[in-house]
């Protein structure tokens, strides 16, 4: 071919400049990284479950797939065709299950990650963005940062209007709940044990993502003497803590504990304040740590401070599921969600 090498290079350079112009707008993500806003966003790759859920609540049709395939009983509480989109693996956490070539082949316009914005994940974001050439936005997944994360996501996927409405809902919820809790004197803040595992002996230490909602609502986590993540404790220790409320995500434990003579001496069990967290389609208090926990704040507040929160949880559930999960629930479905069972 008679093309001069210099012309080719000039052409490539021009391409680069025009691409640069199209992506001139940028967003500062949750980690302070400057991410170019893609000119068009039709396909977004979620790096992990929190990102998938957040994107689903804002713009479900953009979701390429899910980090893990959803189960049928979960799909009943989401848009069915979106819920059944394929499993694409995850890019965060302890090792990737997604293959970067597969990610590239899926041709997303944006890779979205929601969660920790610490150095590990910042460097992961930078590396993937460099390797694939796809903009990679990392948003802060903490409850306190949810509104801002929505606004940033809205700017990234050109849905600023809807994002503002989600952010408003979150802000309103937090303001209402925290406002009422602020009136509760310290001696009425319950001492809470957060129980996981079939025997209820896994718990979250102070600052762990698992008890973020409990701590956010001003309750006293009995295991907060130490900072850290999830850990094992002995029943002896739980007896010593003698919590007034037990919040659990394990339905086997929740049903067993009421009849278990070993747990009977604990205040929470004696007074019937063992509460099984709803989990369909996503957990309400714990995992994945994403916006699914916003409706859980109402539930948790009612369990922790019954006099301050006389609301009918069914109405709140219907409202949240309609706005965030795009489904209108029947009364029977709401009852199933609130029962915490699958």
């Amino acid at each position: 071919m008679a093309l001069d090498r210099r012309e080719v290079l000039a052409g490539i350079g021009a391409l680069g400049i025009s691409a640069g112009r199209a992506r001139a707008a940028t967003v500062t993500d949750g980690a302070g990284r400057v991410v170019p806003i893609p000119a068009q966003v039709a396909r977004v790759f979620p790096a992990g479950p929190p990102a998938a859920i957040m994107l689903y609540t804002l713009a479900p049709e953009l979701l390429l797939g899910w980090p893990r395939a959803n189960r049928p009983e979960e799909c009943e509480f989401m848009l069915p065709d979106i819920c059944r989109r394929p499993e694409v693996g995850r890019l965060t956490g302890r090792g990737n299950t997604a293959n970067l070539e597969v990610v590239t082949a899926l041709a997303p316009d944006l890779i979205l990650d929601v969660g920790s914005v610490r150095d590990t994940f910042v460097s992961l974001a930078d590396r993937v963005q460099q390797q694939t050439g796809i903009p990679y936005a990392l948003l802060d997944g903490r409850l306190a940062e949810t509104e801002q994360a929505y606004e940033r996501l809205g700017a990234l996927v050109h849905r600023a209007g809807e994002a503002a409405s989600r952010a408003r809902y979150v802000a309103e919820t937090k303001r209402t709940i925290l406002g009422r809790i602020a009136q509760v004197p310290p001696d009425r803040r319950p001492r809470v044990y957060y129980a996981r595992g079939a025997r209820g002996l896994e718990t979250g230490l102070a600052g762990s993502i698992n008890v973020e909602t409990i701590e956010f609502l001003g309750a006293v986590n009995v295991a907060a003497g130490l900072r850290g993540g999830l850990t094992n404790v002995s029943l002896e220790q739980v007896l010593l803590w003698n919590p007034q409320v037990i919040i659990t995500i394990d339905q086997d434990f929740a049903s067993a504990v009421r009849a278990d003579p070993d747990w009977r001496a604990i205040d929470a069990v004696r007074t019937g304040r063992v509460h099984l967290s709803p989990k369909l389609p996503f957990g309400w208090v714990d995992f994945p740590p994403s916006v699914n926990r916003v409706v859980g704040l109402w539930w948790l507040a009612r369990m922790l401070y019954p006099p301050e929160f006389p609301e009918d949880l069914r109405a709140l559930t219907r409202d949240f599921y309609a706005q965030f999960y795009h489904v209108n629930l029947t009364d029977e479905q709401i009852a199933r969600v609130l029962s915490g069972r699958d």
Partner: protein
Amino acid sequence: MNRSAALGFAIALAVLAAGVIVAFTLGRFPVALADIARVLWAKATGGSSEVAANVETVILRIRGPRVLAAVLVGAALSVAGAAFQGLFRNPLVSPDILGASSGAALGAILGIYFSLAVFGIQALAFAGGLLAVVAVYLIGNAMRSGDPVLMLVLTGVVIGALLGAGVGLVKYLADPYNQLPAMTFWLLGSLAAMSPADLMPLLAPVLLGTAVLLALRWQMNVMSLPQEEARALGLATGPVRAAIVAAATLVTAASVAASGIIGWVGLVVPHLARFLVGPNFASLLPASAILGGGYLLFVDTIARTAAPVEIPLGILTAIIGTPFFIWLLASAHRSWS
């Protein structure tokens, strides 16, 4: 039994007795020594202890079973370790040499992956441990070349590595929020969730396996000689080896199923026992059991009292075991050779 062995036994028993007393009195939940005595006396005589209900729960249903379980698991791992060290004529052998721990690990991890109840997880772990060793034994025996003992060890190493890869694969596929922490905790070993219902499935196999090993004590003495000498003394080495492996595996699999992976105990304690009572299996096996029970009891007491949260046993046994083992290697070589 000669006089030095008798002294050794006295020391081992003193360690165990001290361990039991310390373990019963120490704990996160404050319990007075008098209350313990009252509750145990009431339990023995069938009367009423008149101690607060939650104190009684702690003594009889939480701390008591855990103390017993620690003694049983420590004894089981140490007996199995002593048996395997003699059988393979190697001081660096531990009870997981033939893949019992790796098999149990894969079984338990699969149980967690499929969200089974606690009993199902323990049953799968037990079955996994037994199956792994059966597989190792069949493959190792099918190799007709070379020393059968060496073949067994090498097959154990290879199958153990394969099972380890299986564990890695299941962890990789597990749900990172719910299952992965549970798997990690299991692999680090703990007696935190021990309840009275867990004691029977642990006690029965441990007693059975230990009884078989004790019955084989003279054969084990002969087996620790080179194979030709053992044969020359008229011992059918094949069947005896199979019986020792089966009994030691039964004991190991039952304890790993109950407690998760606890390393070092089965490696270190037999050396200490040999140091105290000498290499004769008639003394070595019971001494290992007593000493192992006491040792794990001390370690478990640290694990449950040092902090409000549990310290994984596997980590503590490694931290305590490593310097101890180095010291043993340096100072007590004569007790082995």
